[in-house]
């Protein structure tokens, strides 16, 4: 047997691969030494509770840099305050893109803020990566190929509740309460899609409220009168607390589904009265560090070490800090896969070719999958039930 051709082929392959490796490609914001990433977050103003997300992300990159960065490059994370004001977001994002020359922006927060820069980012062809909002419109690669979400969007969450109802109570009579805006309608659409043909027969009452309404008491009375035995509660925190209290007070005891937006124990269930919230079903996709179930979990243990060392001021009971850690780990993987080809196009391409990627702070069974025509990284959630003290996960992971 002649071994020569094999040898030549091997040599050729080696030469080819090394030339591919040697071919470094950079867009503005990337170099041999660093990768520059931009961000806006509300550090001040009405939504400043979210500010901790960007702080935990910055801390994560600091940890990463201490460990040698990504493929030998340090991450330079530049974050500005936009006070949750869309004009300020436009100004700051233009500064990031045009003056700081970032490779892309990451985790810009808020639906209105991201809407304000949506067109601009796509005209400039600069990635608007893993935006921090649950609206479904970020998954539109055809019209907006440079914008991608991250968390489960409102529609996929609502589909999970619908699937659970179909399975456990196929003859349910459902009453809906929703906030009359994009957010409420997003949930509504996902829920009806999830019920499919049965939506018309199962939904017996559909009641809305305005953000400007003082209470939702009359809506709850109306829902009770409709005879509904399942209640899907699509409300923001203040109204969620009112709805829970009123339903309990008038003796209405439906199976109660509460959207993820308002499942905070501290700011919703406690004000409503925890004894009134027993049995409510909601959903989650990342590990809540206050959950006893994760007390000895390795990933949460690592996260605590990270918090102690790199973000000692951060509140370890705040799930936003787990969120920031998890989304930053996702981006780390995207950039790792980019290798030496750090162009904006390749960043988008790698972000859109995740196949079942897992960060261990996500709930077991939940992973990140994207493709060229699916820009929704996390599309599954797990249901949880409130036991009067804390949420308890149950059942299997729902969704894709």
């Amino acid at each position: 047997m002649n071994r020569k051709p094999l040898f030549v082929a091997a040599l050729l392959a080696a030469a080819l691969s090394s030339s591919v490796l040697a071919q470094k490609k950079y867009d503005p914001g990337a170099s041999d030494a660093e990768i520059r990433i931009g961000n806006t977050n509300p550090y001040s103003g009405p939504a400043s509770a979210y500010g901790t997300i960007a702080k935990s992300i910055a801390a994560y990159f600091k940890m990463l840099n201490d460990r040698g960065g990504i493929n030998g490059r340090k991450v330079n994370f530049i974050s500005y305050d936009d006070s949750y004001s869309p004009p300020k977001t436009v100004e700051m994002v233009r500064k990031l893109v045009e003056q700081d020359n970032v490779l892309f922006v990451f985790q810009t927060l808020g639906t209105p803020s991201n809407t304000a820069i949506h067109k601009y980012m796509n005209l400039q062809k600069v990635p608007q990566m893993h935006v921090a909002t649950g609206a479904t419109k970020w998954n539109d690669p055809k019209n907006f190929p440079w914008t991608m979400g991250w968390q489960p969007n409102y529609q996929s969450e609502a589909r999970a509740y619908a699937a659970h109802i179909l399975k456990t109570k196929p003859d349910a009579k459902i009453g809906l309460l929703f906030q009359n805006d994009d957010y409420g309608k997003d949930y509504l659409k996902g829920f009806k899609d999830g019920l499919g043909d049965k939506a018309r027969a199962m939904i017996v009452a559909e009641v809305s409220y305005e953000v400007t309404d003082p209470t939702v008491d009359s809506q709850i009375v109306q829902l009770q009168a409709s005879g509904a035995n399942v209640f899907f509660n699509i409300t923001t925190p203040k109204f969620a607390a009112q709805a829970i209290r009123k339903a309990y007070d008038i003796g209405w005891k439906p199976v109660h589904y509460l959207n993820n937006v308002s499942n905070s124990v501290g700011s919703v269930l406690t004000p409503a009265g925890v004894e009134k919230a027993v049995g409510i079903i909601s959903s989650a996709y990342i590990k809540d560090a206050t959950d006893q179930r994760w007390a000895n979990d390795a990933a949460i243990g690592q996260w605590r070490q990270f918090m102690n060392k790199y973000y000692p001021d951060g509140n370890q009971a705040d799930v936003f800090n787990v969120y920031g850690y998890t989304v930053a780990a996702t981006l780390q993987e995207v950039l790792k896969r980019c290798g030496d080809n750090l162009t904006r196009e390749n960043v988008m391409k790698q972000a859109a070719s995740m196949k079942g990627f897992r960060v261990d702070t996500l709930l077991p069974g939940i992973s990140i999958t994207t493709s060229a025509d699916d820009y929704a990284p996390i599309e599954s959630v797990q249901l949880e039930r409130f036991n009067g003290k804390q949420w308890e996960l149950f059942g299997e992971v729902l969704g894709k």
Partner: protein
Amino acid sequence: MSAPRIEWVVPAAGATDRHAIWKKAGAIGLLALACALPWVSSDYSLFQYSQVYSYAIALLGLNILTGYNGQISLGHGAFYAIGAYTAAILMDKLGAPYWATLPAAGAVCLVAGFLFGLPALRLEGLYLALATFALGVSMPQLLKYHHLEAWTGGVQGIVIAKPEPPAVLTNAGLPINADQWLYFFALAVTILMFALGRNLMRGRVGRALIAIRDHAIAAEAMGVNNALYKSLAFGVSAMYTGIAGALGAIAVQYVAPDSFNIFLSLVFLVGIVVGGLASISGALYGALFIQFVPNIADDISKAAPWAIFGVIMIAFVYLMPTGVAGAVRLLLARRKSP
């Protein structure tokens, strides 16, 4: 008859010839600088300067009401919002050209301001401040009201197209991009509005407004129609702010209820006080302050940007009790005297 009597209240234009020459030279220098900026600044900075012009017009509007007429408004963000939405709706729903939305926004706000001013006449001082505060607080919620959603776009707001430089200029081979064009457009509008404002405040109307501020009963005794002038001040002030709002919306290319919260109204008030009450040029200084100082504060501390902003603001107010405009005036006066 009454006019000459109170003329001394306003410092007469050009007290000395030398003073007038200095001022003219300064104005021409500033104008030359403003025109040179687009050729040396980045597009991003030009966007910021366009915002400054928009704020300057709004502050001038508020200054007419608060500085010259003594009526405190904590709700001018609402008029800014009405102007912005007028422009956005006209462009988005009716396809109006961007420049035509400015007069429309001004007219809408003139009427809105005048009407709001009529009942507000019965309220004095702090009570008026509270009434306008209510207006400012409720505006974002009104903009989300679902019966108006077909027009306002609800919480989603309205995305508007960026104005392109006119074909005449680009065809002539002038290398001007959209940001540069927007800057010049904003500059031209600002110069026009400032010239109008200056003439208005230097004339009979301005003297009447100041007289009402300083002593309402005395002004009335001299034949000034207090009710009319106060409502008029409200209307004109709202008109300025509305035009500014339209200009700001065109620059940002997006309007949403969250852009016009109560904080905007408070920042406007900060702007006129820091810039200088009852001063035309003060509006420009104030606009520079509210545009750039929050950014500086954010650079200094991410943990407490508004605390830093507060410290800077206190320093300004302490060091320049009559505003930046007052300090500049003082400085010029010192140089003049031997």
